[in-house]
């Protein structure tokens, strides 16, 4: 079932088109990654999905209802967290969560706040004003705020930015758990491609406001044909460098290691060529393309041909 459907969404600021004819949908309990380089239109899209920016064209439907017509009702079941917005600095964590809880129709507000505090490990910070918190602690407070109304749809803009690896892992596991327990649907932006591969069922890639791709992280990674072949050269490093240069492969060297970008289907021929030239190696590892490779390839391509 489609929880959110976006149809021909467009946002223009004067003559600049920030989001251009974007259409996609989000299924129940799906985690959708919204990826793209800086300025691609991700945040603009999220702001339109939250109703804090009016689209120039297009329609947004949540739970089968037109968002523009049912804003108040829809937002009872939607929430967001962004590294780039702040709750009031002067208020304590408890005060912020308390006043925010009154903006939603929640049955047991004190109970919900207590639960959220424990889930996000905020017990010791409750009576501290936000201005005293570190960036990572603020991110946890923002996430706590995002879960306060038992959202059915969550929009997360860089949810783990500024968290240490342990806290980021905890949050990723928490998101996956919320999804499986409560069927929460999530749209997530992140520059951490490993995180996107780990948690997202599907990825939409946008650039210059347009959708470039819509697929699973694995499929997108697979669309990049180039593998990274790393060799520990025993003998013939100079010849190896000459060889890859002649072949036109991208490469880099680190001591006795050479890492060469080779298309998957060309790897046998590449290795045979090394043997023919008497280049020997002790170790070899072949790294398949990742979502990050896809990201880099696509952004390089669109930078070269912006339209």
């Amino acid at each position, binding site marked *: 079932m489609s929880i959110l459907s976006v149809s021909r969404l467009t946002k223009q*600021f004067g003559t600049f088109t920030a989001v251009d004819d974007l259409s996609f949908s989000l299924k129940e309990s799906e985690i959708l990654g919204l990826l793209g380089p800086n300025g691609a239109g991700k945040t*603009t899209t999220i*702001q339109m999905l*939250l*109703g*804090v*920016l*009016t689209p120039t064209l297009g329609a947004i439907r949540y739970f089968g209802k037109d968002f523009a017509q049912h*804003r*108040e*009702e829809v*937002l*009872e079941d*939607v*929430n*967001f967290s*962004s590294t780039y*917005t*702040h*709750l*009031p*600095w*002067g*208020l*304590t964590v408890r*005060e912020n969560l*308390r*006043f*925010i*809880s*009154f*903006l*939603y*129709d929640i049955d047991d507000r004190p109970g919900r706040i207590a639960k959220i505090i424990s889930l996000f490990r905020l017990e010791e910070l409750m009576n501290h*004003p936000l201005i005293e918190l570190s960036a990572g602690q603020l991110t946890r407070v923002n996430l706590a*705020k995002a879960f306060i*109304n038992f959202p059915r749809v969550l929009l997360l803009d860089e949810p783990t930015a500024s968290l240490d690896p342990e806290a980021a892992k905890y949050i990723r596991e928490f998101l996956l758990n919320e999804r499986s327990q409560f069927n929460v649907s999530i749209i997530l932006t992140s520059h951490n491609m490993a995180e996107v591969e780990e948690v997202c069922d599907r990825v939409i890639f946008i650039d210059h406001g347009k959708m470039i791709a819509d697929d699973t992280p694995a499929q997108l990674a697979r669309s990049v044909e180039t593998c990274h072949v790393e060799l520990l050269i025993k003998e013939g490093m100079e010849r190896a460098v000459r060889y890859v240069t002649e072949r036109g492969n991208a490469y880099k060297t680190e001591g006795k290691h050479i890492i060469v970008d080779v298309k998957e289907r060309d790897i046998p021929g590449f290795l045979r060529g090394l043997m023919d030239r008497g280049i020997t190696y002790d170790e070899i590892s072949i790294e398949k393309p990742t979502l990050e490779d896809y990201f880099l390839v696509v952004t390089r391509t669109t930078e070269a041909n912006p339209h």
Partner: protein
Amino acid sequence: MKIHRVWGMTLRYIYAFRHNIDKMADAFYWPTIDILLWGLTSTYLTASNPEGGPTAFFVVLSGILLWLIVWRGQGEITMNALEEFWERNLINLFASPLMFREWMASLLALGFVKAMMSFAFAVTLAWFLYAVNLFHLGFLLIPFGLLLIMTGWWFGFLVMGLILRFGRKVQALAWTSIFVISPFSAAYYPLSTLPEWAQAIGKCIPITYVFEGSREVIATGHIDPWKLIISFVLNIVYLTAAGWFLHRSFEKLRERGLEKIN
């Protein structure tokens, strides 16, 4: 309109008030300074010109006390709204089910309570320091108070609408602009003191009728009810127009994006 959301926003500003010394200053410090300064000035003037008598002293101090209601009513709207812009909190608020009118309702309710709080404090102080009892105005204080705060509200709406349209470069209007109407509204002297062109402006300001009426009550014990009616009608017209302008300004800002106020 959901009461729990209005209460949520009211709570947000009560918490901010508790933590913020500037807000305490607005509520208590400035009224104290006004009462001391103008009370002592009036005492001196009365002593040096006894013909003016205690009535003149009472007129000036009642003008100061009643003006407080307008000033605090407007200030609560614009300063609390500005705080949301400064703290970049508008997205948090309007990505929730909060309606614009609920936000406004919380600002109006809080403005009313805090204006009354400052007023009560200043009236008590004036009574304590100078034995001036504003409750001599009797039940008329209720319509006077309502008409004064209504002017504070529509003026606050107008200023906030301008800030939403033109951004923080005009934010100084929040704490300065209300004083523009002060000389025309004849708060401390009769309207007839002003030149004719200024009197014409004064007659378009609803609180002019309140200040004129309060002096009439002090002098004669009675008030022409038309003064209250004209003041009320003008307030309603301006409140409607300013409310519409503010809402349009907010929708215009939403077209640019709520984080784009700068």
